[in-house]
């Protein structure tokens, strides 16, 4: 948590206690079982670009960015947005979803980085 201290001009104690409180609050709900799925970003493309998931289940999505540059995983359909640093993994929780197609894209490379999650 070292880098938190770089944040300018507000109480570090306050930040830490807010984060701490959040961590305690969250630890209980994170135990719920969910399906885990993986997507890889390479050459500004998602692999697989199409992912089938079950309806009505919470999904843990692991997105690994193998490119050197950062990407933003974004989906209006799923209401999700997350920056993923270059050469890094990220975890995004989605769902439970109703049956349907949910498009997602990489905001930083929208031309190539397109994908869809199909809940069925």
């Amino acid at each position, binding site marked *: 948590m070292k*880098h938190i201290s770089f944040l300018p*001009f507000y109480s570090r104690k*306050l930040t830490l206690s807010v984060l701490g409180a959040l961590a305690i609050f969250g630890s209980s709900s994170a135990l719920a079982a969910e399906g885990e799925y993986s997507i890889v970003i390479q050459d500004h493309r998602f692999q697989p670009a199409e992912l089938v998931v079950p309806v009505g289940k919470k999904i843990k999505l692991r997105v690994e960015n193998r490119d050197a540059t*950062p990407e*933003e995983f974004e989906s*209006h359909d799923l*209401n999700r947005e997350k*920056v993923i640093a270059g050469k*890094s993994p990220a975890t995004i929780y989605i769902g439970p979803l109703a049956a349907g197609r949910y498009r997602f894209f990489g905001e*930083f490379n929208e031309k190539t980085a397109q994908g869809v999650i199909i809940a069925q």
Partner: protein
Amino acid sequence: MFATAVIVFREVLEAALLIGIIAAATRSVPGRNRWLSGGLIAGLAGAGVVAMFTDTIAAMASGIGQELFNAGVLGIAVVMLAWHSIWMSSHGAELAKQAKKMGGAIRDGQRECSILLVVVGLAVLREGSETVLFLYGISAAETSGSLPMLLGGGIGVLAGIAVGYLIYGGLLRVPMRWFFTATGALVLLLAAGMASQAAHFLIQADMLPSLAAPLWDTSAALPEQSVLGQLLHSLIGYEAKPQGMQVLFYVVALVVIATGMRWAKHLHQFKPQ
């Protein structure tokens, strides 16, 4: 270049609107320009640092560090804005009337200004770090040199600032008797929108249940990524497909701050001056 401008504009817009509204709301607070620019500079510096440490932040708390960080930043901003709203509802009108006559006003104003610095700094920090990352990404990938990127980024930043300035200028034209109601309401809605965004990050991190996902869907009538949708998102926290918990956070923040404002105003009226 155009795509760069659009993305940078979207990132800058939210911070620019916030600064425009805050600047208008505090126009009678002595020395506020110094504090606002202080917040801006601190935020920009912080944005660079956060961008640099993105992977470290993201890896924290088993992969949900970014959500916690964003929720934390937003949470602090909500508390600060709440404090600001409540303070302004008891002191604002007075400050405007007797501007620099009261010795206490300056001292109170200083405290108020340090809050502004934090709010502005946090808004710039959050939006700025994403912009830095994005620009870094294309500068690393772009083969055509960095000029188009700089140009696009510059246009995006300027367009964002222009919108912020528009709302600032517009608010200053509001007649004095409506002015504090108008700016007060805007700041209140800003804070509620931020509370909803904080909830959004905590749901994404699986630390809060979504309650309903989505609670409603207006993406056909008013898409969030449209110009109006973006503007409403930044101003009042509009979302086309909000989750139930977000709406709950929104309403609770709204009610708590509004009650605080009424209460402060009420107390103030009975206090002999």
